[in-house]
């Protein structure tokens, strides 16, 4: 290990059922630097850091901290080693106060038992030196007042506007994030991991955070930030490591590269498939959305004023990095999420805030992002899942009875038409037993064969094997041919470019860019997806002299 190297992750590999999250990734951090970890969703950034924090254990590979090899089996080990993590989804307990959340797990005894406080009489040293007593004291007393004062001091020092005696449930989101950061700072960490820290901060708050981070690194702290925001990378990091598809693409010095370069590294140039895309004349609108607002599950606004129209026979690709409101937008368009403002019209019928059944009846189909959570009932058979949307149709149900014979045939049709493999009898195999690709094909079959007017597909090829990806994309084009309007959400820019007639980019809950595959460059889209403000100038430069990149 070189003098400056503080952390080294070597050849880390981590696999989950069906997907390789980290593929032989090595990472090196220098002492006192702010290191950026950049990549699209699914690139493996979160997994890598969770391994570093002891939440996951790597299948292969080693971690070295300051020359010592770390063997971590739990977050406690990471904490003991001086590693702290500020999570994207807050790990706070609402019922407890700020200071209680921060001291949780530290087991500080009450002041009387703490070594090093005033007085050195016989009783005092007896109290602090006896290990049995210390053991009891750390468990059965609560050191709160002193730590509370310390934490308040810490908060004030860094300009966090917080009352540390307040209960967390009373705090707003920005405040809660500050508590998260305080949590790590209080533990006297040497390495601080931040996961998408500015996701819920205003620009001013983000700037304050960066100032704090710089001050901390000046004092010797090493920081690594997971982010997809190119601006942040340029603003605050010293070096950047880019991950893509589970691999480390490279580590570079921030100052030597532009946002363009980072976008290119992140997004890659794999052109896997050439698809035949015929031009189709588009028809009238199938869905019209006006000034739509919606909150996410945490109650934070995720869709912030979206206007959108999709026409018959067109594929509208929605590009964006996960977490910018596209999931929530997709859910509002199919009736799976309520809106807080704005309107939705499907085929000229107002369906704003109607229940999902109304959307289904008006010809809306949905392929959700999480196929197991939202897309199927894993413990039920293929036959049951195939009929999930169709079971109210007259061919299956006369109101009371369900024609399982017809359902079985229907399921078999789906399986055959969409090449779902691994099914001998649709009644005996459970949906949860199918591989990712086959399950996705089944869900697509179910949603497409209803001949919908609008199909919303959220990440339809994610986590799916190559053969199935090709199949799915071809079917999407076929559906477009048949006149369905399709909203395709995808983090895969290749897919967006290959399939879309129009491309929209979503960032921070708003549509920030609209273009076509012919007119757009992948670089520019990539920049817009990541909120880069320089996009305008770069695009001009590219349009003038540079080649159009796909």
């Amino acid at each position, binding site marked *: 290990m070189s003098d400056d190297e503080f952390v080294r992750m070597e050849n880390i590999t981590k696999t989950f059922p069906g997907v390789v999250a980290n593929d032989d990734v090595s990472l090196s951090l220098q002492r006192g630097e702010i290191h950026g970890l950049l990549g699209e969703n699914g690139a493996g950034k979160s997994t890598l850091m969770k391994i570093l924090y002891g939440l996951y*254990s790597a299948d292969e590979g080693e971690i070295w901290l300051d020359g010592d090899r770390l*063997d971590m*089996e739990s977050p406690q080990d990471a904490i003991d080693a001086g590693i702290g993590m500020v999570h994207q989804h807050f790990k706070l307990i609402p019922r407890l106060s700020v200071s209680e959340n921060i001291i949780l797990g530290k087991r500080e005894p009450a002041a009387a038992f703490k070594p090093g406080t005033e007085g050195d009489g016989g009783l005092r040293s007896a109290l602090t030196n006896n290990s049995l007593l210390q053991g009891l004291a750390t468990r059965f007393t609560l050191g709160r007042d002193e730590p509370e004062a310390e934490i308040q001091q810490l908060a004030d020092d860094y300009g966090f506007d917080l009352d540390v005696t307040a209960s967390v449930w009373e705090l707003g989101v920005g405040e809660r994030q500050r508590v998260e950061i305080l949590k790590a700072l209080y533990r006297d960490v040497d390495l601080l991991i931040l996961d998408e820290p500015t996701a819920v901060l205003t620009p001013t708050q983000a700037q304050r955070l960066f100032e704090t981070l710089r001050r901390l690194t000046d004092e010797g702290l090493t920081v690594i930030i997971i982010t997809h925001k190119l601006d942040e990378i340029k603003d605050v990091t010293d070096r950047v490591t880019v991950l893509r598809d589970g691999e480390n693409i490279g580590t570079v010095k921030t100052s030597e590269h532009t946002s363009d370069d980072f976008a290119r590294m992140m997004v890659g140039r794999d052109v896997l498939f050439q698809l035949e895309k015929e031009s189709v004349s588009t028809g009238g609108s199938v869905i019209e959305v006006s000034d739509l607002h919606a909150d996410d599950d945490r109650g934070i606004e995720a869709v912030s004023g979206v206007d959108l129209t999709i026409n018959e026979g067109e594929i509208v690709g929605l590009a964006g990095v996960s977490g910018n409101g596209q999931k929530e937008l997709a859910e509002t368009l*199919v009736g*799976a999420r309520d809106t807080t403002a704005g309107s939705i019209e499907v085929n000229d019928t107002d369906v704003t805030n109607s*229940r*999902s*059944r109304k959307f*289904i009846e008006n010809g809306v189909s*949905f392929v*959700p992002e999480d196929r197991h*959570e*939202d*897309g*199927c*009932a*894993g*413990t*039920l058979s293929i036959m*049951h899942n195939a*009929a*999930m*949307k169709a*079971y*109210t149709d007259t061919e299956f*149900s006369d*109101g*009371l*009875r*369900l024609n*399982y014979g017809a359902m079985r045939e229907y399921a078999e049709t789906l399986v055959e038409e969409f090449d779902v493999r691994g099914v001998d009898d649709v009644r005996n195999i*459970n949906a*949860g*037993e199918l591989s990712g690709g086959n399950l996705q094909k089944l869900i697509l079959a179910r949603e497409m064969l209803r001949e919908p007017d609008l199909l919303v597909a959220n990440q339809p090829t994610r986590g799916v094997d190559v053969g199935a990806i090709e199949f799915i994309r071809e079917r999407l084009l076929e559906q477009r041919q048949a006149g369905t309007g399709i909203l395709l959400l995808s983090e895969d820019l290749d897919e967006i470019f290959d399939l879309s007639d129009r491309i929209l980019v979503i960032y921070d809950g708003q549509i920030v860019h609209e273009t076509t595959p012919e007119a757009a460059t992948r670089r520019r889209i990539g920049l817009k997806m990541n909120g880069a403000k320089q996009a305008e100038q770069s695009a001009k430069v590219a349009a003038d002299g540079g080649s159009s990149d796909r």
Partner: protein
Amino acid sequence: MKLNVDLTPRTEVPRWMRYGAPVFTILAALLVSSFALIALGVNPGEAYYVMFVQTLTTEFGLTNTIAKAVPLIFAGLAVYLPLKAQLWNIGAEGQLFLGAIAGTWIGLSVSLPMYALLPLMFLGGGLAGAAWVAIPALLRAKLGINEIITTLLFVFVAAQVKNYLVRGPLQSPTANFPQSSQLPAAAQLPDIPVLGYPAGILLAIVLVAVTYLVINYTRLGYEITFIGANDKAAEHAGMSKFKIYLLVLLSGGAMAGFAGVSELAGVQGRLRASFAPGYGFTAIPIALLGRNGAVQVMLAALFFAVIFVGGSSIQTLLGVPSAIVDIMQALIILFLITSEFFKQYSVAITLQEGADAGAPAKPEGEV
């Protein structure tokens, strides 16, 4: 040396395990219960012989078993149906009481010939049982309040309502005991001619068939099953959790009410303060054993009926306290829960050399 227990979630349950689990459970429970028998100086072989063989081969035993099975089948269905939607109707016992109360009241106040009175009693009992679960059902469907606690609380309230009524409005004017008057002959469940089994078994079989048909052949059954399997996906599909939750709980309450009426009209003959058969609680292991279908529920109910009848036989014949049945019930539940675990995870126990988290040295056993 470190003992390492590796748990791997299963993607599918092997056939032998899925159908064998209830059998293994029962065998294990019987095995452990034999220790309790031995502790009291009783030969387990003898006890089980009386409990099972004698009960099933004598006419007396068989008739009693069928009689006991009737309310158990109803109660089992009362828990089984909500369970299909992943709801726990722990309060079946309370709904059973209300059914018995309504049945008593109707039986004593309305004078009609049997073929009209009995159906009326069952109808009233079913409505009463459903009414008794209505509030917990609404609280769960509307506010998401856990139905385990609410239905349970209602059980104890029901018990006291029953006690109050048999000491008050429903008390028999002739005797000074806390019990109602004897039900008139028209209100008592007759036996099936020739066979001699209680008529209630016919209704029970019908309900089992109806439940089976509904779950497996109707749209409603499909929705119930789907919501039980994944309520989030079900909502995406446009199904109404609210409606289904209410429906299954109210139906469950009604069936528990039937259990109350059938026990009252078929066995008890009058409502007593001491009436506390516990069928509503036995219904829980019955529904768990019969998790896969209404017919299995019926079989499980029959099994428990055998145990109950056998239990009182060995009490009279061998002096074994009939509480052995409660112990067996509890053990069945215990082994059922444990088998649930093995159905979800495959367990590999290994011994590791040293403290390295390296490859396991000697695989010990895998289930």
